[in-house]
């Protein structure tokens, strides 16, 4: 179909259908878009065009930027030992385990195994955040530590994707130098732009943030790297600014949700082959099990080292085993750069989507900690400043 308007109407129509399905079922709109994309790709044989690929890439960049900007720097600083230890181990062990399995057992190539390792080492801040809000744990220290650890895990993912697949050339050096110059000054510059242009309907502050993203993304792309790395890093350094400037966040979200991320998620779905999915059910099950098992090997012991009670440790480990956004982004990167084929892409995306459901359901059903006890302990820890922190319920029982 050469008519760009007709193509746009079809894609936006699918995005509208996904939004309606999300409303009816309670699923997130992103997941609904992936599922609608799978149906459209397999039943309607929907194809992408160059401009759709660009919009999808822009959508994934903006998605990554917003993911970086949603970090709460204060939480990471306050609980840096736990968050870095849990987050880094939750990245490295699954990356190494899945890479080794894909390369040594499944017979995938070296680069293909790297994509598999990256895609399945991810966690999902958004899936975990939704669980936290539903269960009330977003108000507790435990919930904040898990969320901050998810951010560190995702940082490992974007760094691996950005650096492992970059060409070692002058552009990479230029990207490193430009990033080193831009990142430290980005918050101050953004704040200056906001202060001087606040309230203008032309939204100069939004354009400035996009300029930073495209500038670094352009250099990264020229170096063969993935533009999501600079997007996530800019998001992270602007997180403090975004905590104060809620209107800016809302405008960028509106832009992302309404027109950009639907193209990304629907496209990600269209590239999934149902035939390949059915043919690879066994490998999908093994990789899902491996993802969760390697998260256990990485996360469970470290939670014990930080004296998390049994239930809290299992809950943390299971929630760190989730995945969605960065898993699909990594798999799509592999497919669009010719590293993996459609069958491998289908396997990875299916495992990633399943990992959004399975660990979450198990954690909520069998290992949800006692919210009231955590709120009470957190409140007690806050009130008498300088006093010894009271033990969590299980800690108290253990010491007794």
């Amino acid at each position, binding site marked *: 179909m050469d008519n760009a308007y007709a193509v746009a109407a079809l894609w936006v129509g699918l995005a509208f259908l996904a939004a309606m399905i999300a409303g*009816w079922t309670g699923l*997130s709109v992103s*997941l609904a878009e992936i599922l609608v994309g799978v149906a459209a790709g397999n039943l309607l044989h929907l194809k992408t065009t160059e401009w759709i690929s660009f919009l999808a890439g822009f959508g994934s960049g903006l998605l990554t930027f917003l993911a970086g900007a949603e970090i709460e720097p204060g939480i990471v600083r306050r609980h840096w030992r736990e968050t870095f230890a849990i987050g880094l181990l939750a990245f490295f062990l699954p990356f190494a385990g899945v890479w080794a399995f894909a390369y040594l057992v499944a017979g995938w190539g070296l680069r293909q195994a790297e994509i598999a390792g990256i895609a399945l080492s991810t966690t999902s801040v958004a899936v975990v955040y939704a669980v936290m809000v*539903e269960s009330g744990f977003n108000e507790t220290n435990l919930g904040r530590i898990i969320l901050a650890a998810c951010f560190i895990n995702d940082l490992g993912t974007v760094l691996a994707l950005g650096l492992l697949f970059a060409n070692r050339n002058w552009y990479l050096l230029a990207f490193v130098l430009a990033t080193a110059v831009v990142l430290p000054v980005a918050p101050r510059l953004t704040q200056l732009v906001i202060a001087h242009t606040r309230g203008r309907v032309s939204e100069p502050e939004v354009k400035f943030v996009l300029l930073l993203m495209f500038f670094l993304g352009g250099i990264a792309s020229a170096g063969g790297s993935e533009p999501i790395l600079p997007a996530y890093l800019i998001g992270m350094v602007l997180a403090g600014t975004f905590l104060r400037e809620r209107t800016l966040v809302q405008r960028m979200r509106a832009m992302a949700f309404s027109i950009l991320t639907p193209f990304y998620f629907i496209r990600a779905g269209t590239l999934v082959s149902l035939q390949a999915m059915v043919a690879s059910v066994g490998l999908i099950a093994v990789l899902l099990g491996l993802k969760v098992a390697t998260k256990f090997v990485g996360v469970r012991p470290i939670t014990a080292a930080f004296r998390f009670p049994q239930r809290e440790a299992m809950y943390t480990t299971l929630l760190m085993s989730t995945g969605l956004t960065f898993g699909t982004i990594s798999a799509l990167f592999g497919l669009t750069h010719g590293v993996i084929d459609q069958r491998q892409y289908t396997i990875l995306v299916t495992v990633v989507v399943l990992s959004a459901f399975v660990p979450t359901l198990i954690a909520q059903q069998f290992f949800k900690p006692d919210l009231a006890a955590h709120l009470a302990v957190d409140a007690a820890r806050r009130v008498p400043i300088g006093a010894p922190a009271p033990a969590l319920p299980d800690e108290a029982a253990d010491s007794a």
Partner: protein
Amino acid sequence: MMFKRILVGLDGSAGSKRALSAAIRLAAEQGAELIAVSVEERLPHYAAMVGEVEEAKQQANEYFARVQREAYDRAKQAGIELRCVTLAGHAAQRIVEYANAEKVDLLVLGHSGHTGVWGQFLGTTADKIVRHAPCSVLIVR
């Protein structure tokens, strides 16, 4: 039978408003404490973006703040100090958990509240609460 602490489910539907009226009458007659609980159950599951959950939660918060303000004013007119609570998650599960935690004597619910597609298949929120509630349940039609 005397009730000391009554919990009423409040989702802004016509059914829940009828339940509130009955709960206010009962609380006034029996000198009981009255708590209204609202559950944000339409938050997106398995989200890919924190913003999607945050925006949905903000909209739900604003909606329930309006509903609870109206309920508070109605109770105040009857001389009852209504305590309002908003929770998130599965409505039946959270209401039962809350009733347990607060040791309420009576749960008052409207018969047909807002409910999603799954609710049509699996029964209403009230049906599920009746099966699992730790106390007496009054369904108001």
